């Protein structure tokens, strides 16, 4: 089954719906945790460090952090559930095992997970966007265009997280994925500090990280100053998705047919 066509299959949306049902029962605590935590960092860094540093001509640190934390919130919402949730649904909880006794294909299950994680990223991002708008940090209605960007970002982060969830032998190995890969890349994505004063290699690293492109696009949209380069950032995200989308689908088929 073509990995991209799997998105269009009704079963992918039924898998999405299953995740929505499971999420519903603890939605409030999930939202609270996913919003409060970045907000605490945001306020602590923004007001705390902001009192000591100033950005030449770029406004306050709070202003700078807003779009970065927005993208990060979306990424976390998608990545954690993809990794831990995906692992549980494949192994301990047997959710996928049950699905493949029905006429459901592994590619459709993976596509349903993609849709679900993109939805989580968008929803939690939207809530965070409302919060920073209330703080007076959003300057344009174009900021609403951040939501599709966050959907793509969540999807792009969910894909490798699901891939790892589907290949690890024990859930402890997921910690390695976060500690060794996700966290370091987040640091060089221009979320917390701009990279233009750092050594040149950090900018190459940043260019290779998906979050950097998401943050740049959101920053431009929230400031109300999108340009051709914003479109390029979105194109980078979309292209990356197309390049890796088949990976979790392939391992999932192997896991559910051997």
């Amino acid at each position: 089954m073509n990995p991209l066509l799997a998105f269009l299959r009704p079963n992918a949306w039924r898998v999405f719906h299953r995740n929505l049902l499971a999420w519903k029962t603890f939605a409030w605590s999930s939202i609270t945790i996913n919003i409060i935590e970045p907000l605490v960092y945001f306020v602590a860094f923004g007001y705390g460090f902001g009192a000591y540093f100033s950005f030449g001509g770029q406004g306050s640190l709070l202003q700078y952090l807003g779009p970065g934390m927005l993208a990060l919130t979306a990424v976390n919402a998608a990545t954690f559930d993809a990794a831990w949730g995906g692992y549980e649904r494949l192994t301990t909880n047997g959710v996928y095992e049950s699905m493949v006794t029905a006429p459901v294909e592994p590619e459709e299950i993976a596509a349903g997970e993609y849709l679900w994680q993109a939805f989580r990223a968008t929803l939690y991002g939207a809530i965070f966007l409302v919060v920073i708008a209330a703080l007076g940090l959003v300057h344009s209605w174009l900021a609403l265009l951040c939501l599709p960007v966050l959907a793509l970002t969540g999807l792009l982060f969910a894909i490798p997280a699901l891939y790892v969830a589907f290949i690890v032998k024990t859930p402890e190995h997921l910690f390695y994925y976060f500690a060794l890969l996700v966290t370091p890349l987040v640091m060089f994505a221009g979320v917390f500090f701009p990279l233009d004063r750092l050594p040149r290699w950090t900018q190459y690293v940043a260019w290779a990280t998906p979050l950097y492109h998401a943050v740049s696009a959101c920053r431009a949209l929230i400031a109300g100053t999108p340009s051709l380069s914003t479109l390029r950032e979105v194109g980078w995200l979309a292209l990356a998705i197309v390049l890796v989308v088949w990976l979790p689908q392939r391992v999932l088929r192997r896991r559910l047919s051997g």
Partner: protein
Amino acid sequence: MSGEEIVEATELKKDYGTVHAVRGINFHIRRQECFGFLGVNGAGKTTTMKMVYCRIGATSGKLRVVGLDAASHSAEIRRRLGVVTQANALDPELSVLENLLTYASFFDIPASRSRAKADGALALLNLSGRTGDRVRELSGGMQRRLVIAKALVTDPELLILDEPTTGLDPQARLLVWETLAALKRSGLTIVLTTHYMDEAARLCDRIAIMDEGRIFALGTPAELIAAYAAPDVLEVSGADGEALAAAAGSLLVRRERLGETDYLYTRDNGALLHALAVHGIELQRHVARPATLEDVFLNITGRELRD
């Protein structure tokens, strides 16, 4: 569709790397019968079931299910089956009703109809009052019944159950047995695996005895007992088996020894006991009883079925 037969396996084989889980088996399952695979752990029962419900592909051999080739029509076959897997078959994050409705949705059953079907299946399994419960709030017996309800919600042509009562207490087992017996009476075709002799004897029209990836015998319980165990058995503990055999002479059809116990198979326990008495053999601990599937299993595989 090939008439009577709902499952046809020919030289069906499954290797996991160097492990030969199923070593070329042949069987046919007829519509409206209850067919059982009886065997100890590791016999290859689950592997066989997984091939039938298209969870895994065969290494070689031919398999047709509901008239379709399992190698090429996996999704169409799954659409027509009800499956109770050995473990892990319920979604712990969903309620009882959500479990059924979500599962039904994968069979293209519209939401408007699946609610009525779910209510029917829950009523049949005595779970009507539990629709809003989470799965983990149910007892082991209720969970097992819910898995069966889930398998029935899609109106399957064939119900497959992998060890339906393993781990259940006697009362919960009885409830599951009664449900399966009622389903069978209503005309549903059932395939189950078990390592409980009484379960196989009670529910199954025909039984395949499996061991080490092979089917050693296949037939109705009565046929199997007639073919592989004389009608009577005398179990004697702590005696000299050779001496018993000598005294029994031609009355002895077959003798098996398991641990401290000799199993003397004979056409007539009365005559055998008489012959032993005539030869002056005093039996300390012994049981005279009709032969069962357990004896068939022992005679065929040389091992005990009970755990």
